């Protein structure tokens, strides 16, 4: 999906995946369905915060993911935009598109 920002969806996903790999290098190859929150999450709560902060920095601080996360109503919601790599990527792309629009 091309974005109106300078970043494509693939580039955003690449930042998410590479950031996760830098935090959890022992993880086997990850996919879009890799869970980031909930019982099956590949990162713990501190790791999740570290991931969000590092992704923000990896994207040049153009999105405030921390604030966005805190605005969500429930950490364990099955529809949570931060639940997987794929949904988080979509969420970031949506934030970027919103900024451009």
């Amino acid at each position, binding site marked *: 999906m091309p974005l109106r920002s300078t970043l494509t969806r693939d580039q955003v996903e690449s930042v998410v995946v590479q950031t996760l790999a830098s935090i959890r*290098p*022992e993880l086997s190859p990850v996919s879009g369905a890799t869970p980031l929150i909930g*019982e099956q999450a590949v990162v*713990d*709560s*501190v*790791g*999740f*915060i*570290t991931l969000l*902060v590092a992704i923000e*920095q990896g994207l040049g601080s153009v999105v405030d993911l*921390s*604030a966005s*996360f*805190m605005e*969500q*109503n*429930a*950490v*364990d919601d099955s529809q949570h935009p931060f639940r997987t790599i794929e949904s988080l990527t979509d969420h970031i792309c949506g934030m970027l598109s919103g900024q451009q629009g």
Partner: protein
Amino acid sequence: MTFNQDDIDLFSKASHDRNPLHISDDYARRTVFGERVVFGGLAALACLGRLSPGRSAPMSTLNCEFVSPVLIGVDYQVEITRSDRHAHVLLRDGKRIVVRMSVTFQDSRHIDFAPTFDEPPTSEPTTRTFSELPIGFSVAGRWSPDRSGFVKLLERYELSSAGTADRQSATLLWASYLVGMELPGKHALFSRLAVTFPSGGTTCDSAFDYSATVTSANPHFQLVTASATVRCGTQIVASVEIAAFVREAVSNSTLTEINALCPSSSVLEGRVALVIGASRGLGAAIAQGLALQGCTVVANYARSGREAVEMRESLRDAPGSVLLEQGNAMDATWCAGLRDRLISKYGRLDYLITSASPPLLPLWVESEAVSRVVSHVADSLKLVLSPLATCLEPLAKSKGTHVLVSSSAVTKPVASWPHYVSAKCALEGLVAAASAEYPTVKFVVMRPPRLRTELTNTPLGRHGSLPAALAASHLIAALLADRNTSRGGVMYLDSFEAHSRS
């Protein structure tokens, strides 16, 4: 691998890190952890001591993530995966990782470490809040380990024979000092440490000169990162990146908050209430709410005397009065004495609110956690059963009400809280049985969602939590509405929508 209080004291002595989360029982008990926490740096050093003996190369890089608190007396497992140049270390409590480390080694000789031993820049931790740590904030000073403590620590964990250079071990101690005493200081929760050790150099024969600067400050998670450089004379000993959360104490609800939420009424005036666990959190908010309604409140607390006095003082001008009663509510004999004093003084008991709960740290359904789950459930039961068993007769006599503070986790269980969920389910069962035995007593089971109290005061635990004042106001409203209804039975209070005084 286990840690005891002597280990903590030795590390504190060697590092000059006197952060009260680690060395003060009284302070630590009032945090989310409920007890003294083992220094992350100590756990990391102990793990380094488990690396294969005979490795002679010093470290090139060291990365530590302090994922969960390390606690006294828990039997941790150490997993080491290593090659000539790398090692990965996991410190586990069952399936839960508490410390994750990665190490790389360099091809160079050890550099002698023979520092001068100076007094540290500060002997008491600074009390900086998150807002006092903006990007660019910096600290600098001179540090060296305590001589005898350092030697004992190296011996205790066989660090030299495990191949860890002494000045690299000292760097870990210094990092603990920096985080626990200066940046952030008293309110720190050490999260990550990344150290790069340059190769080569000459004997380090002076104390460490250090400087550290805040490089990022995330207000949503109160997470601070800093870059630091450690020098010995003119040579750089280590380049260091740290990340630490700045813990923010959760204050009790204010009267203004409760007044704004509770209905105005004189219906409860003159009633007598006993609140177990009234010094902090929801228990304190309920005690405040009842006193504002004109109740006489006997407020029990175990050890949080300062908070209990503050709560009572806040109600000086309230229509109701507050009497503090310190004691262990798990002790049925003590509860019986309290009941007798209460009846002797006031002649009746209308409300018993059981709000006390043991500290809540994550556990899993696994063999390593069996004794801790059982212990948590047993303590939770005692905290309710002892006062309930001793107070049911006077409650029955006055056609009074018992309020159990349960949790929404009973109907929406939380993974990693098996002990908490089990305890709350057991308590609800206890209430159901008591209801059958005492038909003239009304029972109210509160099932609030996660509350904003010290019990959930973690970086993510605060997220989406409910103010204690709001939960308390719903109970007060329910008690007011319930005054004219028939006795007996169990009422479940599980809706806590935001509202304002009407």
